């Protein structure tokens, strides 16, 4: 196996990995603010892609604008979801939320199938399709986009939480809602914003990846599973954990299928994750739930 192949696997792993990382980050943001594992997260990814396709094909918007609009619409949908089925039962046990979000996930994918049908949909790449060649490895321009936007989002989220008042307020709500309320933070608004932010990140992942992979209304569950695996792998509830877990899962898949067997990709990546969790039950960077 020569080095250009290894580089090719690395690029492939980083690309899928950063998509997983975005989804895992969305999980984390929502989990931290509401204690909800949002099983519908994958459907938000799907809708991000489907909305972007619709805006490009139906309204003729330029791809960049379409992606932005899709992300906003998914965030709005997140707000609707939070207001209608999450907030009214906010003291319910965690399993209730799993059931609620599972139901939402089925409703979203079935409704999407009714509206958009079951054919795969696709939009052209934002930045052309001619690949760059880097030390013998090919690099599609859209991959740079995904990596760039994902990295910017992750850094942005970090800065947002640590350097802005709203971010600090959200963080405060994550740590202790009652205390946050006592110091005058509008907890309800912060929790709603967090939920929208989490949905938006999933929508962004979907919109970004659609030019590379196309989207169909049935991809949601796969993304939910990958994003969740990534979040647990990195350390459930930690933003850095989500990023590490997402990239880790992507790289495991790429090198697992590249160096060992492509037919057993999921077997390989999930076995490694299982082993890591047996040694470190709270994930690579430790779970928030640990303390």
């Amino acid at each position, binding site marked *: 196996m020569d080095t250009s192949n290894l580089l090719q696997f690395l690029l492939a792993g980083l690309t899928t990995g950063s998509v997983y990382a975005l989804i895992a980050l969305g999980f984390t943001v929502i989990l931290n603010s509401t204690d909800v594992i949002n099983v519908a997260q994958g459907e938000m990814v799907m809708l991000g892609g489907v909305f972007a396709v619709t805006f490009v094909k139906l309204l003729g918007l330029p791809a960049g604008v379409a992606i932005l609009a899709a992300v906003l619409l998914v965030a709005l949908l997140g707000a609707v979801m939070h207001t209608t089925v999450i907030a009214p039962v906010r003291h319910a046990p965690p399993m209730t939320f799993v059931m609620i979000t599972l139901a939402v996930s089925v*409703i979203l994918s079935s409704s999407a199938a009714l509206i958009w049908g079951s054919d*795969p949909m696709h939009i052209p790449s934002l930045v052309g399709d001619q690949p760059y060649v880097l030390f013998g490895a090919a690099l599609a321009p859209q991959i740079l986009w995904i990596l760039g936007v994902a990295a910017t989002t992750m850094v942005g989220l970090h800065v947002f939480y640590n350097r802005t008042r709203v971010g600090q307020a959200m963080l405060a709500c994550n740590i202790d809602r009652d205390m946050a309320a006592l110091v005058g933070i509008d907890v309800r608004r912060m929790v709603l914003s967090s939920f929208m932010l989490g949905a938006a990140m999933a929508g962004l992942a979907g919109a970004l990846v659609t030019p590379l992979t196309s989207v169909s209304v049935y991809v949601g569950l796969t993304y939910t599973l990958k994003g969740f695996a990534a979040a647990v792998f990195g350390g459930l509830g930690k933003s850095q954990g989500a990023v590490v877990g997402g990239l880790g899962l992507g790289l495991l898949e790429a090198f697992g299928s590249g160096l060992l067997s*492509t037919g057993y990709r999921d077997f390989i990546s999930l076995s490694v994750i299982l082993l890591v969790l047996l040694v470190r039950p709270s994930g690579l960077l430790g779970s928030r739930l640990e303390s």
Partner: protein
Amino acid sequence: MLGLGLLLGIGCQQATPAAPTQVAAATKLAAASAPVATFAPATAATAIAKAPSTPAPAKPTKSPYKLGLLVALTGPQASGGSREKDPTLFAVDEINAAGGIDGHPLEVIVEDNQTSAQVGVTRLNKLISEDKVAAVIGDVGSAAMAYSPILAKSGVPFMFNGATLSVTEHGNKWMFRDIPSDRYVVIQILRYMTQELGVNRIALLLETSAYGEGAGQMFEEYSKRGGLGVEIVAQEKFQINDVDLTPQVTKLKSANPQAIVVWSASSAGAIGVRNARNVGLDVPIFAAVGMIQPGVIDAAGPAAEKLIAGAYGIVPGEDVEQVKSATATLKRFVKNFSAKYPGREISFWELMSYDGLRIIADGLRRAGSDDRAKLRDAIEQTQSFEGTLGVHSFSIANHDGVKEDAIVLMQFNGGKWERLWPK
């Protein structure tokens, strides 16, 4: 609450048998247009003396002959499954409008297998024991092997709308197929490669499903034989919901093949084509028929250019009048179906569904009853039955209606499929 209602609504829609609307539609069609009867002679050609010879088709009045349609209306394969329903029911409407089968109207009960073999098995059992259908038509996914023992035990003929190799090649005398087996697609691709391109080192990129793996076995079988002999220098697999196949195509590239074959019915296959071009695999790429489905090829983007795929009948966007190999039945179907469903793309899904129902109807007519065993024998005795995909003939040893002469290789040029070979 609203959500729950929506869910229930969807559930009901799928579970409702099509029968009532069917009969209504049939009567409407009969009332509206008498010339519909013109389609009958082609069917009557192979039918024995029992075919209705009344000049004006009477409304069928005897007890209905029941058939099951078991397809994927939801789940990842729904894109194809939902294309099978309308043409099947369209054939039923035509037959009922022309007087049914010796006065028995056809009634089709539609069931959704949700792209799952488990669900498919329960629905199949329901069709057989509750609805008491005479025969079932349906798609494969990977369910054919799960259905096989049930069909053999209950003695129910099944017409498969699926090219997966194993369907007719594992000795179940109740299983028939209305489109060419993948065996013949593989043979045609290998012929073109060796005779026209002089290729003898190929690499395979296969979907992990009965569809992809069955084709892989075929290529291996023929690679060792003389004449079509090619060497398979690399073989990689992927799953139907994969989003990136870069590792796979990178490995294929290292083996330095002269051509690659992508066998898939999902957009993951198209992603593979794109990834292959991206890593600089500049050799001819061949694809399975599944790649011609609407929407699937889009995921390849500009990388789809020059892709070669097997096809049957006609492909979407093609003018049937310009197709030399088109049968009269195909031309008539395209005209009438497009009149009923304006703007609908017609692909092999529509054609095989239409042919499958009509082959069974022809069998029922010759069997003279809806007895399952008699119907099975009648289907097996079908000779030179003209359909849309070609002329179907079955025998004890052969349960594939059409073979390699029904296959054409298409090439994707400037955003549309064009006939490549045979000319």
